[in-house]
């Protein structure tokens, strides 16, 4: 059931929130063992909250735009008292004493978190296979990965366990799994959604965003969680944008750039789908031109220095001293080493080492410093493109969902899954992935619409056009 329908019915008193939550819990119970979507289900907490919503409706109150809507939370989002592991052994058993701002805002809008979804460990991965709690399967094709790192959140929506879920996107971790699971996923402008309570991977790149089946549901969810938060110094000063009011704006007169670098190297079906999306936008009145932004090719390399560098610092705190896993040893240093050796998986260790190296004396200028320069060059290149067009169009991922295990042994191949999504994180701009077309084996594909900072309003109206175009196609 659609989130907007649930909320409308709950607010009207025609559907009980308890029933909506029970439906979600049943759906989870049916397929969670097979798909490994939720790592923690907060059955009691969700039911209690649903009962509260129903009482408020009975008292004549309006619980908000997401009243009674069951939502999934990626397991790197803190919710008071609910286990938060980031898909890692090192945080096993940790229950945060506070909630993320985005989670508080969901709760304030009447939404009901039903549990925490699986993810690549500390969001480092593109397939949800690096989780310490096992891989998540793609509900559309269970022998395939759901993408990652927000693969659990994508699978939760794709398996109709919940209508919407929150993910986080550091290099494509919302958009790529959305594409691979046939969903809409939004990577908001950096600072639009507070990061307070999002366990950091790479602080200058991380953004929380929604995954949903439709543009309207994703836009509604984003509106709820967006807007200034004094607890995040990088939070944008403005209140949340009006997105629902612009879903039907269309794209007539809009200038769209089809970016060569955001399709090159992709599967032929992906290229075809992206071209078909361009045609759909043209048909709706947009003026589509082809553009090249060669600087985008530098994105992957810069990203794999900047993100690990920040991660190496962000993940230092998992030292066994205060919370999470501790492996005892003879002295403090040995305890730190033993804890981190046992607590982190291979991919996390690889990135910590990469990042530590990139920041080290004698290497900083050649690696991290150089990557920062590339980042600036890329931001400037985007700015030039946005002088010519309003919106950019490209593929979300180079392939359809790949088989479980296919890229586990080849980190470079895995990293390339994010080649089209990474530039937006480096620039801090907004992007949305919309299902469009089918891959060689009939699995869903996604295309990506990119815009400058705070262009979400335009992006959702363009995405709504593609959504309609897909239905007609």
């Amino acid at each position, binding site marked *: 059931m659609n989130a907007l329908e649930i909320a409308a019915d709950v607010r009207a008193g025609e559907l009980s929130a308890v029933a909506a939550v029970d439906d979600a819990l049943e759906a989870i119970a049916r397929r969670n063992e097979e798909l490994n979507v939720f790592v923690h289900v907060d059955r009691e907490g969700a039911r209690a909250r649903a009962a509260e919503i129903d009482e408020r409706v009975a008292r004549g109150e309006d619980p908000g735009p997401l009243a009674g809507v069951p939502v999934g939370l990626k397991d790197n989002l803190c919710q008071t008292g609910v286990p938060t592991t980031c898909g890692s052994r090192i945080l096993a058993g940790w229950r945060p004493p506070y909630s993320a701002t985005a989670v508080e805002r969901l709760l304030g809008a009447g939404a009901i978190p039903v549990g925490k979804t699986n993810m690549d460990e500390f969001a480092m991965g593109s397939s949800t296979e690096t989780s310490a709690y096992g891989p998540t399967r793609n509900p559309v094709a269970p022998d395939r990965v759901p993408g990652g790192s927000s693969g659990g959140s994508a699978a939760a929506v794709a398996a109709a366990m919940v209508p919407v879920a929150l993910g986080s996107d550091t290099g494509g971790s919302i958009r790529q799994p959305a594409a691979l699971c046939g969903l809409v996923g939004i990577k908001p402008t950096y600072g639009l959604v507070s990061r307070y*309570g999002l366990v950091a991977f790479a602080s200058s790149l991380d953004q929380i965003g929604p995954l949903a089946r439709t543009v309207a549901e994703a836009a509604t969810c984003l509106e709820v969680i967006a807007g200034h938060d004094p607890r*995040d110094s990088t939070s944008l000063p403005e209140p949340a944008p009006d997105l629902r009011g612009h879903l039907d704006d269309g794209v007539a007169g809009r200038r769209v750039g089809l970016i060569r670098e955001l399709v090159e190297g992709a599967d032929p079906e992906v290229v075809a789908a992206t071209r078909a999306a361009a045609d759909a936008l043209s048909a709706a009145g947009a003026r589509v031109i082809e553009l090249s932004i060669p600087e985008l090719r530098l994105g992957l390399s810069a990203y794999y220095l900047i993100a690990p560098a920040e991660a190496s610092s962000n993940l230092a705190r998992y030292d066994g001293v205060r919370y999470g896993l501790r492996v005892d040893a003879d002295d403090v240093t040995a305890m730190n080493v033993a804890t981190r050796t046992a607590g982190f998986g291979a991919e996390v260790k690889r990135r910590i080492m990469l990042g530590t190296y990139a920041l080290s004396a004698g290497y900083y200028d050649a690696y991290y410093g150089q990557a920062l320069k590339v980042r600036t060059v890329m931001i400037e290149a985007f700015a030039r493109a946005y002088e010519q067009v309003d919106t950019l169009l490209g593929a979300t991922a180079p392939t359809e969902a790949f088989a479980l295990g296919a890229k586990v042994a080849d980190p470079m191949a895995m990293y390339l899954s994010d080649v089209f999504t990474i530039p937006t994180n480096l620039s801090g701009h907004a992007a949305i992935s919309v299902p469009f077309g089918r891959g060689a084996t009939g699995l869903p594909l996604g295309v990506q619409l990119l815009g400058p900072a705070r262009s979400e309003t335009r992006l959702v109206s363009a995405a709504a056009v593609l959504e309609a175009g897909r239905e007609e196609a």
Partner: protein
Amino acid sequence: MRDGWEMVIGLEVHTELLTASKLFCGCANAFGAEPNTQVCPVCLGLPGSLPVLNERAVELAVAIGLALHCTVAPSTFHRKNYFYPDMPKDFQISQYDLPINAGGYLDLSDGTRVTIERAHLEEDTGKSTHLGGTGRLHDAERSLVDYNRAGVPLVEIVSGPDIRSPEQARRYAAELRAVLVATGASDGRMEEGSMRVDANVSVRRPGEPLGTRCEIKNLNSLRSLQRAVAYEADRQVALLEDGGRVRQETRHWDDGLGQTSTMRVKEEAEDYRYFREPDLTELVPSEAMVARVRAALGPMPAERRAALTALLGDAEATGDVLDTVIQGGLDAFVRAAIEEGIDAGLALARAANELGDAQGAGRLDVPAFVEVLARESAGRLSATQAKTVLGDLARAGGTADDAIAARGFVPMSSEALGAVVATVIGEHPGEWSRYVAGEDKLAQFFIGHVMKATHGQANGQAVVAELETRR
């Protein structure tokens, strides 16, 4: 210091700021609470927490910068990465290439100008207590950590290598402490650790390039600073004269043993992997804020020293007593006393010796100070009584009248004093004969005995007068 050598000293001073809350969260910044009661997700570095800069801390940092004649500039925060159990995030948020204050100076009363390279903002760590072994981390059986101090705002003030003696190092630290207290940014309490000093010490033959330096830590008082620098310079000279070389290292001062020992050598030193703190934006102090802070700054010690020196004239303006008065914030007491016609030397001595380093003015107010000194000058209180009363007033406050009455200090009648003097003369006939014969300096001998007999209640001048009438 042995002949033919020169010391080169630079000091790094950390001061906690007197803010109500911590640097990046709303937890109380207060000393002495139960361990781990002033903590929250942010200062504990819990996953997902984010720092938000305390504006009051910025204002106090700017006040320090302005007081030290620094340029206040747009700055950034960096992460200093290293593992230590009392650092919740295993990195410290500090400032690196762009500090909020840079390029200032501090003038000492001996005429030396010490450059201030920078005075930057950073967060404090928690506090570890190591049980067992020597009380240091490496051989402890257990360690306890109190995170109440984690995230307390600090300003680190880095001097240039302009200091040339242990005495001057102490003088610099004392003057800097007075400046910090005068700005209202710090309470300057070294014993509580709210002001901490690290010393970089090297030696060289005059005119030669800088020698290899050692950094000395654990200096908990001005006295420790002076002793440690002297010890360390001697150690380095002895090493070099024996044909050895100084190894760049961090050394720990042991106050009991009176010596420094190796903590860690340069080769083991951490690579801190500094990079811009992505969770904070650029810090750009507004011109309006800087102007407001500048306008609110009271006179700094140097200015107050000049004003008091002008009042005293050349004769009384001796270095150490004057420094003690200025650095202790006692110049208002001395000025008021002088303006009431009290001898400047007496006012300086009582302020410096009775209210100086040890306890300060405490609850003593200016009128009470002036009143006590006026009574002493008029012979109605003896010197000993005056000191006692000043001590009482510093502890308990109140008026001079009440404090004197509480002690029962009434001036001795001339009859009572005459009787005591007569008794003392009778007990020392030989000395009395010599005094009568013209040996004037024996007056001190008789004053001493009269003071002893009266438990310090007699007035010295009155005793001399009694002696003269009998001579």
